[in-house]
């Protein structure tokens, strides 16, 4: 645990430029991942209720 903490401190935190950059990069990744996660949860929660799920019953692609 202490080794991991030291590794984290020495690689990420020690230089403020690296720290801030990684925070912003992490914020971007978090935003994308959060969006994907919430969307997939919404789709699974409303399974069979959305238009994209029931489109096959009403529209025949010619």
């Amino acid at each position, binding site marked *: 645990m*202490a080794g991991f903490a030291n590794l*984290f401190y020495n690689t990420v*935190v020690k230089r403020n430029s690296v720290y801030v950059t990684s*925070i912003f990069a992490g914020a971007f990744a978090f935003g994308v991942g*959060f969006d994907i996660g919430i969307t997939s949860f919404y789709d699974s929660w409303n399974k069979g209720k959305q238009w994209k799920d029931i489109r096959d019953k009403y529209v025949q692609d010619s």
Partner: protein
Amino acid sequence: MAAIQLAKKAVSLPPTVRTLASGVPSAPLVNLSVRELVGHGHAHGHGAVGPRSDIPPQWVSSVTASSTSGLVSKSFANARTTGVFQKRLLHSTLPAQIEPQVPDFSHYEAKSDATNRGVSYFMIGSLGLLSASVAKSTVTEFLTTMAASADVLAMAKVEIELGTIPEGKNVIIKWRGKPVFIRHRTQDEVQEARSTNWKALRDPQSDEARTKKPEWLVMVGVCTHLGCVPIGEAGDYGGWFCPCHGSHYDISGRVRKGPAPTNLEVPQHDFDDANGLLVIG
């Protein structure tokens, strides 16, 4: 050796009023011969009757009146120099004895400084990450409220069937309150538009940059000078001519002569090849 030990004998001395700088006690104006008052040998609340405590006993010192040399004082002891007495208010030993023991906090301290530091910085970074996400989301959502809604965007599009426009003809339609010229150009006109030395023009723009398909020219029909609507198939260059102030546009809609500063604007447009439609907007 014995004489020194004799000299260090401790005695009681009368209290002094003050101490001289040299350390010698000074008690001026003390009447050393005062004794108990005559007829005062009774107790009425001022202590036991006896010799005064502020006068040294006779065996230590005495003051006698001599007829030859006046007042003679005899002391049988070396008085210790008292010096200037200063209280030592700073001390370190006494409170440790008085105060209770400081509790043992070792149970609450971090087991490992490295882990503690890593976790602290991780928590700080995580909060920063979440804050940055919230800030970015807030700004994005706020800017989205300024964008046009989907129904407005749908109404802002115009579709034209290209099959109805014969070659070499102009069509003027209304799009967002402005006229839009659609020209079905002939091959000769395309050749003419593409062979022009466009780099020497006032607003240098190639015909390839202005059209998505060479035979279809789509432009907003508003003169870039003062907003008149130019007349099609007129002017010195076979394109458009603005009657208000005499600007000439060529077959690619580029200004060639007159006061107009820039070429006619090309709106955003797309071709729907499957249905033969032109979608403007």
